[in-house]
Structures are given as C-alpha cells and as structure tokens.
C-alpha cells in the first residue's frame, strides 16, 4: 500500500507557494485588489488545513481557493466596474460551486483541472502550473474529467 503523503507544516506550504499565488491573484484582480485577496486566500487555506487527509495536490488545492477568492471578489456588487460577468447558474449559485459539487468524486487531478477550467475559467497554462504539470497534461486531465462526467450523467 502506498503511504499517504504527509501534510507539511503550513509554513512550508506558504513559503513555497506565496509568490506564485500572489502573481495569479494579480493577473486575475489587478495589483490593487490582490493584497486583500492574498490574505484571504491563505486565511481560508489555514481554516481548511486541519481537515486535509493527506498532502497530495496541495498546490492545486491552493489555486482552487485563490480562484474562489478571486471569483468572490469579482462578484462583489459594491465594485463600480464589474471586471467580469459571472454567468448565473439556475439555482443562483455561482457556476464554480455547482461544478465543484458535480466533480466531487473525480480523481483529484481531473477534478482540479475541470473545476479550475470550467468553474474558474483558468487557462490551461495556469492549470498546468497549479497541478505541477504541463499545459498539455492539464488539457488532457480536464477533457478526460469532462468525458467521465458526461458518461456518468448518461448512466443515470
């Protein structure tokens, strides 16, 4: 049996990924709004950290949180200039929430790729970076995840 990857001290995770997560948020939100989103991302990560069961895919996990924080930030009604129109889902929940639920039991890499691509509209290059793999591998993971989801819906 493979041993689960141990969860590192939060300091290691933070030190290793803070700069790239910050750059990601700057790309999504612009320099001015990135600071608050950065803090919020890592505070949310800290809140969820004790519930993790293993240390795999931590980078993708962080990117998912950062993407969610950025999406929340972009949806804030108070902002005078909506930088991005969030397409409404049927039940009023944002698209990414719906998708995270649907993709819940895909293999981790496919799930991350599907959620980041179709829920958060990340580019394959960004997803590749989040998953620690190539752009092409990210594209493949997303498309095989989608195939798997489609197959499942037909079965039902």
């Amino acid at each position, binding site marked *: 049996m493979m041993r689960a990857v141990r*969860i*590192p*001290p*939060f*300091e*290691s995770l*933070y030190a290793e990924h*803070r*700069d790239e997560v*910050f*750059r990601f948020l*700057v790309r999504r939100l612009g320099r001015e709004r990135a*600071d608050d989103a*950065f*803090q919020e991302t*890592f*505070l949310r990560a*800290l*809140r969820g*950290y*004790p519930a993790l069961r293993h240390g795999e895919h931590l980078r993708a996990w962080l990117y998912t949180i950062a993407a969610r924080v950025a999406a929340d930030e972009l949806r804030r009604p108070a902002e005078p200039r909506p930088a991005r129109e969030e397409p409404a889902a049927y039940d009023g929940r944002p698209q990414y929430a719906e998708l995270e639920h649907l993709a819940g039991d895909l293999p981790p890499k496919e799930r991350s790729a599907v959620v980041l691509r179709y829920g958060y509209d990340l580019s394959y290059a960004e997803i590749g970076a989040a998953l620690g793999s190539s752009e092409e591998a990210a594209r493949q993971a997303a498309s095989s995840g989608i195939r798997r989801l489609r197959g499942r819906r037909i079965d039902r």
Partner: protein
Amino acid sequence: MTVSPELDARFRDAAASAGLLDVAYDVTDSPVGPLLVAVGERGLCRISFDPEPERETETLARAFGVRVLRSPRPVDEARRQLDDYFERRRTSFDLPVDIERLTPFNRAVLELLARVPYGTLTTYGALAGEAGKPRAARAVGSVMNRNPIPIVLPCHRVVGSTGSLVGYAGGLERKEALLELEGVRAARS
C-alpha cells in the same frame, strides 16, 4: 513579482489574531546565538539553539498540529522576557509553558526543575530524589537532555554530583555562559 514584506507580515499577523495557528514561532537573537521560540495555544512550547527552521517546524507540526507559521507577534512576550533575562533585568520567567504532551515522569521532573532558583545549582541525583526516584539520576539526565524549553526551564542549573557541568543539549559553552550570566562558577569535568 513577489509578495512584499508588508503583505507577508500582515498575513502572518492576521493568521495569529484570527486564532488559526497551532504554533507560532520566530527566531530571535541572544548572547548565546539565535533562538527559535515557539508558542502554542497553551503557552511556550519550544526554545531551540542553532535552529534549523525546516526541521524544527516538522517536529512542531508532529507534536502540536500542522498549522505552524512564523509569526512574531505571539512570541513577543517570551522574547521580551528572554531579552530581560540576558540583560540581567529578570531572574525568573512569568510565562505559561506547555509540557502537556510529555510523559508524567518528564513533566514531574521539569516542574521540579522550574523551581530551581536563579543563580543556584542542583544535581541530577537531587532532582531524581525530589521526584521520588533517588536512583533515577540517569533518567533525569535524559529528561534534561530533551528539555523542550531550555533557559526558561533551567536545565543549565543542573550539574553532576561532583559539581562538574557534565553536559548540555545546547553545548557546554552555552551552559557555562548561562551560569556565568547568573553569577555562578562551575567546573568543567
């Protein structure tokens, strides 16, 4: 583009203020070299000489939980008292310490150790006797050797039955330096 020091500091502060850390730590300078000082929910839980933060955070995460983060604010009070001690403005520490996770014998010995006054010496055998195990001097030695909170729990005040310094996890030079600071002269064997 990288995270600015201001933003980094802001996050580290916010994480501690929000009560989200199992352990906050920082590295502080002292006359006996840099010290890693760690504070958990129940109080001071580690002081390390010659800290290698990477290994240290792993150990702390295993003992106290994975939310270990360098965050200076929660460590301020311990740092202030240590500074005072090294400046001879303070002869005892008033800090909650967390030794909960140690074995009962370890804890009992460390609690006795905490009462050994500034500027005095005791012996491994005497502590063993006080702990109700007069023949356990060697075991007391190993408790001292693994003392998680040296300086504050003053294992530098414990010497061999002949008065020789015997040993110190942080190195004999440091034991000598701490005793000299407290005005005690002890012989190396």
